[in-house]
């Protein structure tokens, strides 16, 4: 009997030990991730008073539905989607083009690889300042070249979002290039050789063998790129501050202005939940696809 009790005690200790080891990490996560995350949901249920100092009022789900149906939110969501559509496909396409160019057995091709991937080492602030200067109506290169619309590019309702998108594409190009290069290197050489022997020209080989082999990489880049696009803040803050006329007011920037300028944490909390949900869906999509990729293993 005592033998059995001892064995039970031993089993209990063996099971508890791993959890004990997880506790410190769990504590940090609880304070800095789980608590703010849950608190945000709570904030979304309370309406912030019009004047500071008054108590916030519990309004339940009414604030959520009000914010999500507001034209400001719909505009911001649309701007964000448009921004993702402008940046993600173009970024992947350019990254792939550069990767294909650099995927040659040529002397000195390493220099090109370094140059193509160098924007990874550039911060958002630097990229924004560089492009802000290029497009500046006073000192910019583009106006000097004769491209000088009125109003100026970054204050132009039609051109501001594409201009910020261009900055973002440039900044993310290094990452896109590195992802596509890695993908290209993983395409088995014997598949391309088999296609060659099977009579396929270089164009057919690229479209029917290389691109399908790259599809997991392309999908990964698309999801990661979309998540990045939905979390864009720095470029907007430095180049356009959401303007002109909210034409570049992406979700994250909208959240920050609601929180800081309008002092409206309830409203900002609802926007955060919306952004979280979109990112969650994108992430789940990515996970599901990564599982499917197993079938690609030969």
């Amino acid at each position: 009997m005592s033998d059995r009790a001892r064995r039970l005690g031993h089993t209990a200790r063996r099971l508890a030990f791993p959890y004990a080891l997880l506790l410190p990490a769990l504590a940090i996560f609880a304070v800095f991730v789980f608590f703010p995350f849950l608190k945000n949901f709570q904030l979304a249920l309370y309406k912030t008073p019009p004047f500071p100092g008054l108590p916030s009022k519990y309004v339940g789900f009414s604030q959520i539905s009000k914010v999500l149906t507001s034209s400001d939110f719909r505009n911001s969501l649309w701007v964000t989607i448009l921004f993702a559509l402008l940046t993600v496909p173009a970024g992947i396409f350019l990254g792939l083009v550069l990767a294909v160019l650099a995927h040659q057995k040529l002397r000195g091709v390493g220099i090109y690889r370094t140059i193509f991937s160098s924007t990874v080492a550039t911060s958002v602030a630097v990229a924004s300042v560089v492009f802000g200067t290029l497009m500046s109506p006073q000192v910019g290169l583009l106006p000097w070249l004769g491209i000088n619309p009125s109003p100026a590019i970054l204050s132009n309702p039609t051109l501001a979002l594409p201009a910020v998108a261009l900055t973002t594409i440039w900044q993310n190009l290094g990452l896109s290039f590195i992802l596509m290069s890695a993908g290209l290197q993983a395409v088995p050489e014997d598949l391309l050789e088999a296609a060659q022997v099977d009579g396929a020209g270089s164009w057919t080989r690229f479209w029917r063998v290389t691109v399908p082999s790259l599809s997991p990489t392309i999908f990964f880049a698309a999801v990661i790129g979309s998540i990045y696009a939905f979390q864009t803040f720095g470029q907007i803050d430095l180049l356009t501050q959401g303007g002109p006329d909210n034409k570049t007011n992406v979700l994250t920037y909208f959240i920050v202005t609601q929180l800081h300028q309008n002092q409206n944490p309830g409203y900002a909390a609802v926007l955060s939940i919306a952004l979280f949900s979109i990112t969650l869906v994108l992430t789940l999509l990515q996970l599901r696809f990564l599982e499917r990729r197993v079938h690609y293993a030969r």
Partner: protein
Amino acid sequence: MGRVLLEHITKRFDDVVAVNDLTLEAHDEELLVLLGPSGCGKSTVLRMIAGLEHPTDGRVSIGDRDVTEVEAKDRDIAMVFQSYALYPHMTAGKNIDFPLRARHVPAAERTQLVEQAANVLGIGDLLDRKPGQLSGGQRQRVALARAIVRRPEAFLMDEPLSNLDAKLRVQTRAELVDLQRRFQATVVYVTHDQVEAMTMGHRIAILDQGVLQQVDTPQAVYERPANVFVARFIGTPPMNTLTGRVTASADGTTFETPGVQVPLPVTTAAAVAAAGVVEAVLGVRPEDLRLSATGPIAAKVILVESLGHERHVIGRLDDGQTLIVRIPGDVAPPEDGEQIALTPTSGGLHLFDAASGQRVDG
């Protein structure tokens, strides 16, 4: 079908000579095996025929056409890769269809050809599966079907059986031979497995360090190896090779080394005299040695290995050289440490020049 002709082919990778001045022809409807140890250049030769490598020197012809400067896609050959190289994102059917599609064969004809090729290989019911859902043997069949779906001038096969388990390998070997006969195909087949080479090849070309050693029928290569390398490479267990000296006297010409005094046949003796060979290598296959009460070779048994149907007696000569004797399983083997005498069978002796390694009697 057509022949494949290589003329004075050399391939250098930087400072490494992978293939050196190779001239070789696979005749029309012949199954020619390129055999050699890994790194001997046999795969490079195959890749040059395919157009995947460009020779540094020399000419490649397929059929009556000089294809040295022709791209792989325009060479009209089919290749089976060691890895099978199936397109993982396409079904088996689409894989088989790929060479037809790439060559713009009309759709109706393609469907029929794919079906035929699949039926020949017994994979008609697997066409909708992707390579990841197939077993190794099934993938191999898909790869073969993709090769035979067209009627190219020649088939190139790069160790196509090496990824199969032993049992499947033996079975597929026979099927490949049967396919080759039915299609009357010209096949260049690369392998490092001498059993595959012996059983499948009409002729075998043996390569070592990029140099062609011998081309002949399997039986001829086995019975009259051109040099010491071929002698040792073909046969399991390998041919015994003893180094020693050749001496001529009034009684005839003998090969001598401590404990060994083997009289050479008259024809060999004449060739030795003509070539002036003194330092020599005597080759004798394990099955061409007989245990006897007295004999020209004296050895001490160091190990007896039993394989059931036969035994390998490993003996050591007085000067430390070892040799293997093959005896039937029902013959009582000698004891370890026992002194034995061995007699070579008539016609079982091969003599090579020790300096060049070449066979002395032509």
